[in-house]
């Protein structure tokens, strides 16, 4: 299985840390209000750093595991991707079932020269296969390999 580019690990760690910090702040706020209402000793406010720091650590760890578990490959007959931290998912789409391939990239993706590629099949009820944050050149190769990059 191919891994995602290393730059994705950094990107996900930064966003994981930011998300963890935000959630940690909410938990710390709730705990702070509890300490205040219950009139516990003020020294306990120092402990509020724990959910904040824990949230950041959890976010960074989660991003690392998420990166390690992401994988994709194109075989002779199908394209396959696997992902997941707690729940694991693996999607296989036979190459001759591909209807459309779309790519998109946000501002940060464009700064890092990354693109997200999505493979669609017939039937809107079927799950698509999405590989996030691949290098632009890799995306072009995939499109060509899957027969949809002729006009790139």
């Amino acid at each position, binding site marked *: 299985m191919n891994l995602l580019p290393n730059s994705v690990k950094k990107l996900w760690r930064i966003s994981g840390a930011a998300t963890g910090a935000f959630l940690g702040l909410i938990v710390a706020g709730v705990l702070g209000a509890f300490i205040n209402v219950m009139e516990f000793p003020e020294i306990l406010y120092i402990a509020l750093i724990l959910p904040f720091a824990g949230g950041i650590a959890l976010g960074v760890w989660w991003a690392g595991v998420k990166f390690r578990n992401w994988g994709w490959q194109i075989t002779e007959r199908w394209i396959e991707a696997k992902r997941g931290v707690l729940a694991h998912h693996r999607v296989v789409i036979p190459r001759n079932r591909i209807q459309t391939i779309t790519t998109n990239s946000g501002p940060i993706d464009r700064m890092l020269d990354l693109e997200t590629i999505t493979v669609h099949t017939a*039937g809107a009820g079927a799950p698509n296969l999405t590989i996030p944050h691949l290098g632009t050149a890799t995306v072009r190769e995939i499109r060509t*390999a899957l027969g949809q990059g002729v006009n790139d």
Partner: protein
Amino acid sequence: MTDLPAGSSPPPHPFDQGAVPPPATAPPLSTPVTTPDASSAVPLDGPPTAIGEVPIGDVEWKRPHPYTLIIEFISSVRDLILPIIFIFMQGSGDSGSVLAEVLPMVAILLPVGFAVARYFTTRYALTDEALLHQFGVLKKSKQVLPRRNIQNLSTSAGLIARATNLVELTISDASQGGDITLRLLSNEDAESLMSLLRETSAAALVTPESADGQTLDGAADGFAPPSAAQVMDSDPIHTLDLGDLFKFRTVTSGGPVLAIVMIVGLVIAYFSFPDLADDLTFSSALFILGPLSAVLVPLLAPMLSLGGFRLWSDPDRLRIKTGLLTEVQVNARRERIQLVQVDRHVLAQRIGLESVKFETADVEQGGGQISFLAPAVASESWTTFASDALGEVELGEDDLQRVSPLTQRRSLVRFGSGGVPLVAALIAATIAAPGNNGFVVGLVSLIVMGLYVMFAMWFAARRARRLGWAVGHDQFLFRNGVVAEKLILVRKEKLQVLRISQSFFQRRLGLATLTLGTAGLGLLGLVSLPDLETETADRLLHELAEASAATPLARTL
């Protein structure tokens, strides 16, 4: 296998260099994969390529039947109801003025004008290559549906249409939103148009990909399938017994269970909060009306849509007519059918009834009554209908292998965690009940909890006994569900996408859920089989993916 390095520029893909030849049956990788449904319906000012793909010869435009004006008038009144009410109110405010004389006329003429404009801006034409449809007063639209892309033809007729012997004809492709709906045509025009479209789309089935000596339903031999009228003049192969449907819906609609739950809930609420009950004038009518409506609505609604259900089968298609008020006609080509699903409710099994459904690649036909192949038929008769839809059925329920027995344990754990809020609510209700009422509420709560435990044990044991799968040469059969059991037969070649999922708890038990996607859009389009052993799920995924990859796309839609 291709291993592109992560990150920066990868080496050229082996397939581009021809290092690994593509499978013999797959389309060439150097050309875009054909998407027959793409751009089948485009706006008038859309990209020129969409229309340019379909060479259009001489066009002879036609208009809908003049009676369409009546339908358009009703639609216009409905669409313009707010402006009409506003104009009437303005006019009635000053009875002596000229405005009061003019505005009611405007209110009447507005929908009439709109209806006339709609009628005269709507036209359709059938060329050698495509069906064209133009419509719209303010926003003009043009639809181009290549004849080779046609998946399904269906007609429907409401009360007014039936009174005037007209039908609404819907021509569908495999895309979402690509349908063309022609309203209203005379029966003769609709029949003639359907006949022409059917011949072309049948011939289109003999594509280069299917020209390997096989002809599909003899289309290449110039075989002209019988028209819908010819087929429907004969006796149907299945006619729904309304009494059976009534019995079936009585036990499967969930109404009786909902009614019992509501009655128990009202009893507990009545005894736990008698003051609140008095405030709300807790009358005996509340005990009757709530459960009664919960039973009657889901019971009677399908009677209208499925009443008069008849099924015909000809060499090319399955044809269905259904509906007591609005009659819907469906013509589903067999090659387009993705899967057949048998719905077996545990209570319906007691009265010996089940329902058989099917799904085509026409994404607009995902839900509703049109997916029924045979509603409320005798149990175990599904193979007859499945063979009508999918050809010879090569697997039976005796072939099914059970999923992992660990599914029973998993089910019990889920019931255990799901029961926590129920127990908490019952305890709270018992504590909140004043005086002697606490005894009554506590007793009812104990009974409810006992029933919950018994149901959980029955459910888990039955789940382990009933979930199963079987693989044949061309077909895959599996059974899922416990109370509302589903038996699904799918052609391997119809599979579009395959997925394995493992929740955190499934991974600890070495289990996985296999999900299969076909080109259908509706609820049946995506079907899952939970709690397979991981190795079994992997093996099935590979086997089914291989079978799917070996079939050209054109034969899978």
